[in-house]
């Protein structure tokens, strides 16, 4: 009788633990499928349904939790549809909801708290996602010529940049586009010192030949200098004496092409031996010894942890045409590869955290077995406890699933007046006519998320 009741309790626990809701990945499947089919409007509809709103003009009642991630996804789709103000609104709301996950070497306990508690808790983003929120939103503001809004995003980015720099986060390599755009924002705001500082940062992370002329021009108004500027000038071809000198009446055009999507996070299962190898530098000797002991006894055999999927091996090249003439796109940043690299750098701490939690679960099961006096009943209760804790402690595989995989820039000085721009990227293209006044500027953005 006692045994039957115990079995019953165990079955209930197992059923309770395994009866889960649809995962984050399941919920965004319809939107991602629509994007893959080149149907951003369909993706928008699917995301509105997930957010339980009638249209993109509405916000969900609760903007926290998973909804902050769905808003990030919707923001990128809105950018693809050129709905920049709504895209900005969604990004700004998410930016305030999402905190940064510390993936530094000494933060294993913190990682465990946020990455192994299933996907029901608050979402903590890796630094690269947080940095990209401000970068993408700067694009939104620049595309509608709003320097005030772009400056706010540039300042927000600077705060995050300092934070990631102080932490020694490997996501630093993703700072290039944000710094380039922040430099552009402050250049057009008449602040040469700040502009040069950001351009200097951009050059630390990427090759931007288009910065030669602006940096030369801004250096005449500022005392800011840098070895990177000197290096850039030394590699640049000498100005053609026959070429027309840049005039104050010239206008400037900046284009941005965002395409592809970063891979999704997946729950990865690895043998305990390999896990201990990954985590060796991140575990205390006592924890490592305990894990080794349990592994030897066969009590812990596999470890689950969240891993970023493999980036797509290659993408086609984007193109930029101005008034029928091909123009150069540069600074192509592989966001997906950089994100993968940043995640891999943090793998040791993540796996260490997973091992620690697994060991805790096994020890809890053993404690239940002892408390119930051992025997078949104790074994069953112990097994039930372990299964329940395991099911409730799955890796969190949420991520910003519509973050572009590639970002490229094109920048040219042009005569004031009307110009036709054609941008193309794998999965999307755009034709836009802009009319730029003398001394003015325009920014055109193409986002293709399939």
């Amino acid at each position: 009788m006692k045994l039957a009741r115990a079995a019953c309790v165990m079955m209930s626990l197992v059923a309770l633990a395994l009866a889960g809701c649809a995962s984050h990945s399941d919920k965004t499947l319809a939107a991602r499928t629509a994007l893959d089919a080149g149907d951003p409007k369909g993706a928008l509809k699917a995301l509105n349904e997930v957010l339980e709103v009638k249209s993109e003009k509405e916000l969900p009642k609760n903007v926290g939790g998973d909804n902050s991630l769905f808003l990030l996804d919707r923001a990128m789709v809105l950018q693809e549809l050129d709905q920049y103000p709504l895209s900005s609104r969604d990004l700004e709301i998410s930016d305030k909801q999402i905190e940064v996950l510390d993936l530094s070497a000494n933060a294993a306990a913190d990682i465990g708290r946020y990455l192994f508690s299933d996907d029901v808790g608050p979402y903590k983003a890796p630094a690269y996602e947080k940095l990209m929120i401000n970068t993408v939103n700067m694009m939104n503001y620049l595309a509608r010529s709003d320097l005030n809004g772009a400056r706010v995003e540039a300042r927000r980015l600077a705060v995050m940049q300092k934070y990631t720099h102080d932490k020694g986060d490997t996501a630093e390599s993703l700072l290039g586009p944000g710094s380039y755009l922040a430099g552009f924002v402050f250049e057009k705001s008449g602040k040469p010192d700040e502009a040069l500082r950001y351009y200097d940062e951009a050059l630390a992370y990427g090759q931007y030949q288009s910065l030669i002329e602006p940096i030369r021009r801004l250096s005449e108004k500022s005392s800011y200098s840098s070895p990177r500027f000197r290096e850039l000038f030394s590699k640049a071809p000498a100005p053609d004496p026959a070429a027309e000198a840049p005039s104050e009446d010239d206008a400037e055009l900046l284009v941005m092409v965002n395409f592809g999507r970063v891979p999704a996070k997946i729950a990865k299962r690895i043998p305990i031996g390999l896990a201990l190898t990954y985590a060796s530098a991140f575990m205390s000797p006592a924890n490592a010894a305990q894990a080794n002991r349990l592994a030897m006894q066969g009590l812990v055999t596999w470890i689950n942890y969240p891993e970023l999927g493999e980036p797509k091996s290659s993408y086609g090249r984007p193109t930029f045409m101005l008034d029928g003439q091909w123009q150069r796109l540069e600074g192509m940043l592989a966001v997906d590869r950089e994100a993968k690299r940043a995640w891999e750098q943090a793998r040791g701490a993540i796996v260490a955290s997973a091992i620690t939690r697994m060991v805790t679960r096994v020890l809890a099961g053993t404690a239940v077995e002892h408390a119930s006096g051992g025997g078949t009943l104790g074994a069953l209760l112990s097994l039930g406890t372990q299964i329940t804790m395991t099911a409730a402690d799955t890796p969190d595989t949420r991520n910003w699933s519509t973050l572009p995989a590639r970002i490229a820039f094109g920048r040219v000085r042009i005569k004031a007046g009307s110009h036709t721009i054609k941008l193309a990227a794998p999965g999307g293209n755009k034709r836009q006519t802009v009319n730029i006044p003398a001394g003015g500027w325009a920014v055109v953005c193409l986002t293709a998320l399939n």
Partner: protein
Amino acid sequence: MSTGLDGRDLQKMLHENMQALQASPVVARWQKETPTVSVLPLRNETTEHIDSQLDALISDIETTLVNAGHVQVISLESQPALMEQVRKQYQDGFDQSKIAGWGKQIGVRYVVTGKVFASDERQNDERRVQYFMFIQVLDVETSAILFQYKTSVTKALI
């Protein structure tokens, strides 16, 4: 709880600034002259998108000045073309030297303006943001700053 700046924080900083202005020598002088004054938008140099909230403060400053009874306030809203010009200049990058020129265009003797800026610190999981509001009174004829005061609000996530 957030480190953002809300309407209450802005009102608190503005209230302190306006109290300091009311007690300042420049207002004592205004009581004898009853001069014309205009309020220009406050610049946003923070990490928050608060431009519309700052615009709302223009009316609050005007109300305080009008109700104190020692100045005539000429609202920039009555000159939309100039308002547009001022906004465009704020967009493209602020130039302090233009303020006096705008004051002359409006036809006022003094201009009240200011800015809000922030100092943002992040360490581990803690974030501390200090917001400052500057209010200035400028003489349109001489561009001299006759009053300047700064208030602050600190927000932190610990």
